[in-house]
C-alpha cells in the first residue's frame, strides 16, 4: 500500500494539530473539569478556581491563544503505514513546529543545557520528541501531547520495595507510590491533575508507558478489572487528600488515574508516575491525502 501526499498538506495538518492542542482542550477533559466544579462547595476557593479555569479555556478557544503560557514538551506518537519515510515525517513536524512558534501557538521552549541558549523555535535535540510506530491502516496517525514544565518536574519514578512508604512489589505498592507522588506534587503541578502510571518496564520504557496513558480518554475504563479497580480506588483516595484545585484545599485533587503495565526485569519493579496538569493538552489527527480529521 502506498500513501501519496504533498509535503505542504501534511505540514499544514500538523500546524493545525499544534494550534488545536495549544489553544483548546479535548471534550472529555473539559467535561471532567465541569463535573469537578459542580462537586465543589458553593462559594469555596476550589469552585472559584475551577470557574476561572473554565473561563480561561473558553477565552483561549475564542481567541486561539495558548491555554497555558507553558506550551511544554511537545511529545508526538506517530503511526505510519508501511513505506512512509520516518525522516520525511520528522522533518515536516519540525517545520510545522517552527511555524507554530512564529504564529505564537507555542512559546520558544527549547534550551541548550550547556550554553543556556534558547533555540527560539522549539526545535533541538529531542525537541520535539517524536516516537514512531508502524500500523496496518492506510493513513498517518499523529497524537500530540503538550506537557508543561510544572507538571513534568513533579513526574517521578519509584523503585519498589520502598521502605519509607512500606510499599512492596505488588499493586498495593503501586497504590502507595501514586498517593505519595501526588502529595509531594502539590503546589508544583497544577491540580487537579491527571496521573499516567507505568507499572514495570525499565526506567525509560516505564516512564514512556506512563506518558502514553495520558492519551487515553479520561472517562474510559481499563480492560483489566483489577487495574480498573485500582484506577478507581486511587482517584477516590487522591480526592480525599484535601489538596484541591491549585492546592487551595477542596475535593478535587485529581481528574483521572490511568495505569499501563509492561513486563519488568526480575530485579526491578518501577512505578513511573507522569503527572499532567489540568491543562491536559492532548489531541490527535488522522491524515490521508484526501482527508484530515481531528479528534
Amino acid at each position, binding site marked *: 500500500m502506498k500513501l501519496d501526499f504533498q509535503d505542504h498538506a501534511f505540514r499544514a495538518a500538523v500546524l493545525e494539530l499544534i494550534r488545536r492542542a495549544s489553544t483548546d482542550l479535548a471534550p472529555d477533559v473539559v467535561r471532567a473539569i465541569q463535573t469537578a466544579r459542580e462537586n465543589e462547595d458553593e462559594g469555596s476557593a476550589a469552585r472559584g478556581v475551577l470557574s476561572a479555569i473554565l473561563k480561561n479555556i473558553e477565552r483561549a478557544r475564542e481567541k486561539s491563544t495558548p*491555554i497555558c*503560557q507553558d506550551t511544554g514538551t511537545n511529545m508526538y506518537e506517530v503511526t505510519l503505514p508501511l513505506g512512509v519515510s520516518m525522516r520525511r515525517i520528522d522533518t515536516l513536524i519540525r517545520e510545522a513546529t517552527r511555524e507554530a512558534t512564529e504564529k505564537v501557538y507555542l512559546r520558544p521552549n527549547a534550551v541548550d543545557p550547556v550554553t543556556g541558549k534558547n533555540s527560539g523555535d522549539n526545535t533541538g535535540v529531542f525537541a520535539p520528541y517524536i516516537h514512531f510506530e508502524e500500523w496496518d491502516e492506510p493513513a498517518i496517525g499523529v497524537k500530540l501531547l503538550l506537557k508543561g514544565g510544572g507538571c513534568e518536574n513533579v513526574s517521578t519514578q519509584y523503585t519498589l520495595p520502598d521502605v519509607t512508604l512500606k510499599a512492596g512489589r505488588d499493586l498495593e505498592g503501586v497504590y502507595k507510590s501514586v498517593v505519595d507522588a501526588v*502529595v509531594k506534587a502539590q*503546589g508544583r503541578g497544577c491540580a487537579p491533575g491527571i496521573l499516567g502510571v507505568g507499572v514495570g518496564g525499565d526506567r525509560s520504557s516505564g516512564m514512556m508507558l506512563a506518558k502514553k496513558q495520558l492519551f487515553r480518554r479520561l472517562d474510559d475504563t481499563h480492560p483489566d478489572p483489577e487495574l480498573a479497580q485500582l484506577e478507581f480506588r486511587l482517584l477516590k483516595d487522591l480526592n480525599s487528600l*484535601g489538596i484541591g484545585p491549585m*492546592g487551595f484545599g477542596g475535593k478535587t485533587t485529581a481528574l483521572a488515574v490511568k495505569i499501563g503495565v509492561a513486563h519488568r526485569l526480575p530485579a526491578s519493579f518501577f512505578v513511573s508516575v507522569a503527572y499532567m496538569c489540568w491543562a491536559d493538552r492532548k489531541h490527535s489527527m488522522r491524515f490521508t491525502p484526501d482527508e484530515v480529521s481531528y479528534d
Partner: protein
Amino acid sequence: MIDLKLPIDEKTIRKLKVGDEVSLNGRLVTGRDAAHVWLVKERPDLVRDFLKDTMIYHCGPVVKKRGNDWEFVAAGPTTSIREEPYQGTVIQEYGLRGVIGKGGMGPETLKALETNGAVYLHAIGGLATLIAESVVKVHTVFKLEEFGVPEAMWVIDVRDFPAVVTMDSHGGSLHDKIFHHSDEIRKKLLHIDV
C-alpha cells in the same frame, strides 16, 4: 476584593492576610529562573528602579511583536518554589513588596516577607489567556536576547490582575497548612505510623 496600586508602600502590604483576594493595578516585572540567578549573582543596577516597592511575577509569557511594541498573548504563573534559594535575597536587595507565582514558597521566603514587609500572591496556574488580557502595556524588557522570551524580565502594566494572598508578612502560609493536612491523610492511607 482589595485593590492594590503598584508601586505600593510597606504599611499597606503589612495589612494583608492569608486568604485576602486582591486585584493588582500598575507596574510589575516578570522574572523566573535565569533572572533570579542574574539578580543575585550580578546585582544589576539597571533594574533597581523598576523593582523598588513593586512585585516580581514568576511568569514566562508567550509574546507577540507588533511593529515596535510587544503584546502579551499568554501569561500564567510558573512554579515558584524553584526560586526559593534566591527569593529572600532578591526581596531584600531590591526592596520588593511582593512575589506573584503559583504553589507557594518555603521558609526562607516566608522569613524575608516578614522582615521586609512583603507578601506572596498566588495566581491561578494555567490562567494564561485571562491574565494576558490584564496586561495593558509592555514598557521594556531586560535580557531578552540572552535569556530568551520566557526567562527575560518584562516590565509591564497590569489592570485588574486577580490573585490571592497565600503567604503574608505575619508568618502565615496557606501552603504549609494544606501540606500538613494532606500529609496526615497520606500517612493514614499508607498505614504509616504518625
